[in-house]
């Protein structure tokens, strides 16, 4: 039987469904800047917080979606465990629900997995206000479709997340970081070479001036790797600055037409001379500050096995072009309709969507 405090959310969504009123699912609002503008009647999930179950030796935690990340991570740290995907907050009070909905991960992601990799189960409300439970609390689970993982990155458009079961990992015994001064192209080559060997890597980026390397694991393993790889010592705090984008590269005010772009693509892709690059995730993720025309950046990213997204601009976030081939777009829309037939959950947050349909239910 669902606990009573799900009832208020069920009622709110059911009512919105019956009226055809768009809902804007809100945690702390720390990700409002991301994606297309949020709109609709606020559905505040922020008060729905707390740990439901935590079994450290099972490597799983079940938590209510409104739980602040800080609170969740403190609970894990007390047991010397952590979320493998090292999520950024980008604002005070950031919740685990919003983090999962936006699928935001930090520097460790390339080595320890992303948000969706850590999702084992969820409890959610669909666009009719129906309460559902998918997945479970175990990693090996192939009963039914993987609806839980589908929620990662869906930005609340497929369901209101109420509870999440997440895989957690032990904190490494020790962490040690190094800095090697070199240009971006050289840095990228070195990163790719490091990835070809079984080093205990937990972070690999280039900040425009130097290659930054984080090693994590047993003390003996980390120290031996550091001796072999070489470099000046780097404070562990550097990775927090990278995660939260308070690093000087991101702190520069964007003037005029300059924009911050986020690219996900083949890690050994080159670095065209278009502006300033920050390379993360061992090359898989690139940040670019440039005033280059968007169409060229989108096309280049696609040619290198990935995509580009305008992340921040001086004026506004800007519209991400809908580059989906027609068949894929139609499938996404059918999938959305399967979860939210009246289109009331965070409409337009991912892609431009039609207005809620008054005739369907």
């Amino acid at each position, binding site marked *: 039987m669902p606990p009573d405090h799900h009832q208020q959310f069920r009622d709110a969504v059911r009512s919105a469904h019956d009226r055809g009123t768009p809902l804007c699912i809100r945690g702390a609002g720390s990700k409002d800047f991301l994606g297309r503008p949020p709109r609709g009647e606020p559905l505040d999930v922020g008060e729905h917080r707390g740990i439901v179950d935590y079994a*450290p*030796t*099972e490597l799983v935690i079940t938590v209510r979606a409104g739980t602040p990340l800080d609170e969740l991570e403190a609970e894990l740290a007390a047991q*010397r465990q952590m979320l493998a995907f090292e999520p950024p907050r980008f604002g005070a009070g950031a919740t685990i629900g919003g983090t999962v909905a936006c*699928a935001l991960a930090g520097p460790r992601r390339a080595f320890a*997995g*992303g948000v969706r*990799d850590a999702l084992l189960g969820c409890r959610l409300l669909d666009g009719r206000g129906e309460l*559902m*439970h998918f997945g*479970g*609390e*175990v*990693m*090996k*689970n*192939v*009963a*039914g*479709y*993987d*609806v839980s993982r*589908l929620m*990662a*990155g*869906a930005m609340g458009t*497929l369901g209101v997340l109420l509870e999440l079961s997440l895989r957690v990992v*032990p904190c*490494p015994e020790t962490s040690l970081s190094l800095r090697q001064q070199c240009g971006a192209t050289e840095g990228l080559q070195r990163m790719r070479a490091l*990835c*070809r*060997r*079984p*080093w205990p890597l937990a972070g690999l980026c280039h900040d425009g001036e130097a290659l930054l390397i984080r090693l994590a694991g*047993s003390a*003996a*393993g980390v120290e*031996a790797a550091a001796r072999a790889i070489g470099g000046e010592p780097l404070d562990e705090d550097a990775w927090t600055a990278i995660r939260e984008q308070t690093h000087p590269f991101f702190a520069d005010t964007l003037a005029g037409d300059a924009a911050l772009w986020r*690219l*996900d*693509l*083949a*890690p*050994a892709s080159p670095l065209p001379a278009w502006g300033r690059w920050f390379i993360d*995730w061992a090359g*898989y*993720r690139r940040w670019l500050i440039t005033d280059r025309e968007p169409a060229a950046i989108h096309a280049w990213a696609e040619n290198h*096995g*990935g995509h580009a*997204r305008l992340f921040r601009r001086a004026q506004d976030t800007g519209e*991400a072009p809908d580059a*989906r081939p027609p*068949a*894929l777009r139609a*499938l996404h829309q*059918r*999938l959305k309709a*399967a*979860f939210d037939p009246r289109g009331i959950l965070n409409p337009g947050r*991912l892609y431009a969507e039609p207005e809620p349909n008054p005739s369907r239910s």
Partner: protein
Amino acid sequence: MAMPESMNDAPALPETARPEARISRPAMIAALRRILPAERILHEDEDLRPYECDALSAYRRLPWLVVLPDTTEQVQAIAALCQRHQVPLVARGAGTGLAGGALPVEHGLILSLARFNRILDIDADNALARVQPGVTNLAISDAARDYGLYYAPDPSSQIACTIGGNVAENSGGIHCLKYGLTVHNLQALKIVTMDGELLQLGGQGLESPGYDLLALMCGSEGMLGIIVEVSVRLLPLPQRAEVVMASFDDVARAGDAVSAIIGAGIIPAGLEIMDHLALSAAEDFAAAGYPRDAAAILLCELDGTAEEVAAQMAQLEELLRQRGAGRIQRSRDEAERQRLWAGRKAAFPAVGRLAPDYYCMDGTIPRRALARVLSGIAALSEEYGLPVANVFHAGDGNLHPLILYDANREGELARTEEFGARILELCLEVGGTITGEHGVGVEKIDQMCVQFGRAELAQFHALKAAFDGDGLLNPGKAVPTLHRCAEFGAMHVHGNRLPFPELERF
């Protein structure tokens, strides 16, 4: 669980082709001839026979037709043709599946991906292997080895199972505790949907925009789309790997040792438990050096750089001693490591020698419930008079009870299946799931009614309909209809309230 009348009767599956739309076999063959050559269309009984079942051999049905395309364009045309004539389509890799996922469907086509067996590209710089779905799991690692790389998920059938099938079942393997399942190692897919469209999912980056259809395809058991190309991530080969075998006089103690290892912050590369029956059968078969008198053995593998392994190994051995391990044997070289694993890897055929037949179960439980579940299984074994050997992926709670039986004994298959169903329900009772890695297929479809409620099952059907509105891809598998749940009575009645009260019962 559906009871076949005899060993060779497949369970009744819902008819999907509407009678008025049913095309005759000669007409279908003629239409297929416009897409691919005659020798790629099988219709004679002796040619169809090898496709009548997968590795769940108790369920067989001769397919209506089998096609073996070579190209993506052929697959697209075949799918579109099937949709036009409302002919169901079942994709098949190597047919090693253990849940009947590739069991032929009434008046349906088997689409074999066996000829899609080329490795298209090994891109070491980008740590990527791009392959066709019919390539075996092991072939990918073999090809990557020259670059000092490998593909981590290693199901025990990896010498034969195909990567397309691995995606369909989200396969794991002994190393998945540390390195993840197929979904954690998958970069991209090309799929053909039932209307013949070709979709590209994922890419060469680690994140893709929009809905995570790549993750949704993993474990979708051939129900959402036909996989025609797979790109996987490659990892650097570990510098060193060592395995420790520890014996215990009590299986619960072995389970506690596992919790202690995880609790100490160690994530081993492999962590397996075998109970007495499994380990003694394995020892007879493979002479791996297992102590026959042990109640259970634990195999724990560590990998990484030489320094990492040495450091963790010291910690591991100390933990095992503290937890009451009897004999602790650590592999001194690669040959010994292989030998210690040989018994575990041969567990199924080894156990298979103990009886004319065996039925391999697959459930996942929270690790802390291991002792309770094993004693529950032992009690059921007494009740049914059927011995059970247990092999346990201790790291992730995935349990494989192997029920020994003789199909030639009257009613023994039915009793075995009933026993198996009760084991799955026990897994659910302790908060687990009915399938860790083998999939639901036809085998566990009734237990889906116990694991999920009406709302979830309806959502699964709606999701499937978004991909395949006519329900032609692998119909009758994996997700039961609500009517089936009501009819087969697998729902439990709580508080005298019948579930699905709105459905008529006969």
